[in-house]
């Protein structure tokens, strides 16, 4: 291996060894943890990519604090990255890690609780001085007090080994230490037999601006790899074979990038220029960042003065014929409510994207939650129905963005898309779609008068509707002869003129409701997974819980239970066959990362006794806790 090749004669060892034979396992969950300043996200990210390139299926879960950089060495400052790699299809970043890389005592203390029994812990012993132990709240050194006996602990002086490796390059000690995460990456790459060359090339590309840093990191990486190879500590490397995924071109993608690309795709497919009006907020900001790069697609991004201006500008752009989009998270969603109501009334296409995070109020900005569903459905004054969609996995965000645009453009309606912090930052391999197979979203605009007045004069009626979809006729500014005014006051059916007529108001309220309800006829029916015909329990989920539910249902079915799973992408309107499906099974269980919002909806709409399984911890479900919940539920209701 080129990596080890370079390492021979390296300072860390004087003897050379042959690569040892690797043990083969089907899956492993690794968690990198360190200070916010230690670069754990970068490390985990890179390990993920090389695993992807190696062909594993995988899923990741970054987990970092709300502070930019809390004080070094404190529990508050710990930043972690979990990656699950496997030789078969997996849907979650895994429950209990098999391996923990702990760069300091705080990382160890905050993470050890999550580990699988018998897990491996790799410790950077250089960081275990008394001050650091105290900072982490350790009274005694955990390495000595037996508290880690249940685990296989490897003590590696990563900082000093890194320093030793890079100092020959003339790097100052302080800077030298900065490369220790690359030492860790090298070590873990050896342990899990990841290819070395791609990472080395990546290091060159990534730090091209700072060659000295690039070289230091490369050397540290190689040193770590060599250390695993040479130090006797480790029994042998472990191999996770490539998964047999459907053939195609894959890339590793997170939800925010997939969503941004989906929006670009929707713009291309509809021929409507993309306009994003947004105000930064965690965890949605990266969509703004990503889209602002793609000006060559004609994408216009406006960092507005606040969320209200963000959606306002998007609505103005929509009136002008752009694909108007606004992106935000809970606090921003609350602020956009009034403008959403206007969009409902104007009947213009608009996409409102909510990357949900822990609430209420500022809550837990960097954690995940699903508690904005009822706000999405009802958070506007008056009767202001809006379609609501939710993505189930990082790559699914791409499809959902396109589907949301299809609905918005076809029915001339604002549409809410729900994602969350877990999907936003989590990654998975994505089989790239054939762009030519993507749907045509082109829109036809009014170019001629669509009405003749009593005076025989032809004119344009902005609220004349397509009899089938009830979508209103849409004429763009710039179209000769079709000048018209629209606004937030109730308007007369057809002409769109202001009207305070009671009967007209009732008509318009019901028309808007029927229009949105009618979309159900044009969306796919729900598909039941699992024991379709004879399940004792139907598990209904929505959004990012898909992976965990899917995994849990698999396990209980393997355990001999009969369970079915329905996962909703369309939350308003629901697919036409949902009611029938719900009544098909004796029991319905609804796991959600909130206090039971979807189950509330299902009960109200279908009078089905849907039972809520809810967790509100700022974390995704683990498949095992859901497995347990399902089993308990079957017991209790047997």
């Amino acid at each position, binding site marked *: 291996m080129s990596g080890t090749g370079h390492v021979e004669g390296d300072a860390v060892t004087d003897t050379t060894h042959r690569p040892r034979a690797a043990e083969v396992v089907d899956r492993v969950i690794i968690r990198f943890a360190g200070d916010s300043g230690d670069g754990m996200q970068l490390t985990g990210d890179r390990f993920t*990519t090389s695993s*992807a*390139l190696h062909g594993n299926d995988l899923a990741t879960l970054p987990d970092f604090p709300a502070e930019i950089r809390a004080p070094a060495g404190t529990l508050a400052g710990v930043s972690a990255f979990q990656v699950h790699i496997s030789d078969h299809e997996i849907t979650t970043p895994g429950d209990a890690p098999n391996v923990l890389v702990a760069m300091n005592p705080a990382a160890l203390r905050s993470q050890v609780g999550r580990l699988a029994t018998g897990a491996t812990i790799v410790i950077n012993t250089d960081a275990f001085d008394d001050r650091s132990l105290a900072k982490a709240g350790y009274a005694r050194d955990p390495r000595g007090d037996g508290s880690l006996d249940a685990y296989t602990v490897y003590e590696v002086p990563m900082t000093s080994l890194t320093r030793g490796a890079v100092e020959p390059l003339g790097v100052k000690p302080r800077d030298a230490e900065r490369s220790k995460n690359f030492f860790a990456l090298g070590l873990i790459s050896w342990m899990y037999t990841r290819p070395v060359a*791609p990472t080395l090339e*990546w290091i060159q590309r990534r730090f091209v601006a700072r060659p000295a840093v690039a070289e230091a990191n490369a050397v540290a990486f190689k040193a770590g790899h060599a250390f695993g190879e040479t130090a006797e500590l480790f029994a042998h490397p472990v191999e996770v074979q490539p998964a047999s*995924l459907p*053939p*195609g*071109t*894959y*890339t*590793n993608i997170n939800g925010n990038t997939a969503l941004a690309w989906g929006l*670009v795709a929707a713009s*291309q497919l509809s021929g409507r*220029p993309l*306009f994003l009006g947004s105000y930064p907020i965690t965890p949605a900001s990266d969509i703004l960042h990503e889209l602002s790069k*793609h*000006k*060559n*697609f*004609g*994408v*216009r991004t*406006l960092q*507005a*003065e*606040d969320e*209200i*201006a963000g959606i*306002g*500008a*998007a*609505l*103005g*752009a*929509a*009136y*002008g*014929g*752009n694909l*108007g989009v606004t992106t935000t998270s809970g606090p921003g969603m609350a602020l956009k409510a009034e*403008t959403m109501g*206007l969009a409902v009334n104007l009947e213009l296409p608009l996409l409102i994207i909510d990357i949900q995070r822990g609430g209420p109020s500022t809550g837990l900005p960097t954690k995940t939650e699903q508690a904005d569903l009822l706000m999405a459905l009802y958070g506007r004054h008056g009767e202001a129905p809006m379609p609501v969609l939710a993505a189930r996995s990082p790559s699914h965000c791409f499809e959902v963005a396109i589907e949301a645009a299809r609905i918005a453009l076809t029915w001339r309606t604002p549409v809410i898309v729900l994602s969350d912090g877990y999907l936003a930052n989590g990654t998975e391999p994505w*089989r*790239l*779609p054939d*762009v030519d197979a993507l749907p045509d979203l082109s829109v036809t605009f009014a170019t001629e008068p669509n009405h003749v007045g009593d005076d025989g004069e032809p004119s344009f009626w902005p609220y004349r509707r397509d009899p089938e979809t009830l979508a209103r006729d849409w004429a763009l*500014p*710039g*179209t000769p*002869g*079709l*000048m*018209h*005014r*629209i*606004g*937030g*006051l109730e308007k007369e059916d057809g002409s769109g*003129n202001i009207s305070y007529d009671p009967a007209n108001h009732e008509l318009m309220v019901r028309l808007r409701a029927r229009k949105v309800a009618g979309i159900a006829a044009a969306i796919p029916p729900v598909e039941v997974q699992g024991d379709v015909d004879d399940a004792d329990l139907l598990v209904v989920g929505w959004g990012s819980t898909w992976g965990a539910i899917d995994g849990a249902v698999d396990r209980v079915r393997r355990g001999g239970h009969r369970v079915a799973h329905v996962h909703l992408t369309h939350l308003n309107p629901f697919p036409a066959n949902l009611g029938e499906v719900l009544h098909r099974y004796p029991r319905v269980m609804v796991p959600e990362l909130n206090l039971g919002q979807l189950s509330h909806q299902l009960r109200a709409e279908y009078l089905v006794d849907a039972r809520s399984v809810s967790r509100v911890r700022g974390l995704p479900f683990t498949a095992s806790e859901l497995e347990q919940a399902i089993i308990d539920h079957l017991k209790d209701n047997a």
Partner: protein
Amino acid sequence: MTDTLIPVTTRKDWSSDQEVRWCPGCGDYSILAAVQLLMPELGIRREDTVFVSGIGCAARMPYYMNTYGMHTIHGRAPAIATGLALARPDLHVFVVSGDGDALSIGGNHLIHALRRNVNITILLFNNQIYGLTKGQYSPTSETGKVTKSTPFGSLDTPFNPVSVAIGAEATFVARTHDMDRRHMMETIRRAYEHRGASLVEIYQNCNVFNDGAFEGITGKQVRDDMLIPLRHGEPLRFGAQGERGVVIDPQRGACLVDVADVGEGALLVHDETRDDPSVAFMLSRLARGPFEPTPVGVFRDVVRPDYGDGVERQIAGARRDRGPGDLASLLRSGSTWEVG
């Protein structure tokens, strides 16, 4: 916007079929008339023109223009117009707002639109009152104003819309009033011709809830002595015989003088184009309210890159450097691998 000849139009062509629903005698009628009369002179098409408004009596104006129009929500028109103007540089976007709409709930959107210098023309109908909600005081009402919501008199100092705009980096700021159609037309024309964001404060009489608020300076008989016409390149004089004028006192700011005392030469020569807004700001402080001699006309008109032009430039540049976007290659822009 096609390049063929612009058809000749009249006020009627720019008037919609909707009946105007303001109170009889409202100053909004004369502003509407001025705008409808100006439009045919601007050499633009009705279909390329959009009036965007918030909520309020003033904000009803778009319904009366035979153009495209959006009557939106309270205070948000500048933000909505910003999106429209950026999405559609080919359109002429006007914003119509009231003193509550623009300076109370909408104050932030207004100052950011001015700072950004998006190409929109903002008409601020200032009647120093909330009309549509039946007469509460507004951010431009004089201190001590007794209204339904302030029976003991208001306590806050009003905004001076021109000062606010200049403090917010505006590139075009002007003031006119509903009693002088010609002046309104001329001032709004200048605002329209300015590339970037322009603000025109229009003193407007609400004869139901704040009647006569500006009579003391706009009344025909007092006008000569109470309005200071701002004319680019000319010394600042006013009064029936131009007997009064404006000088700058370095220690105090702008002051009024009798020309006879100081001589014509000492007067401040008005220059709309000063890059430094300080002198324009000084002029905005001459009157503490519509009861002292008040400057009307264009305070400031400077050239600064229009935000929308910048957006188009960046798009063109990106296309030049990277070619038009290709979806398939975007999806492959990360590291990819094949599964056979």
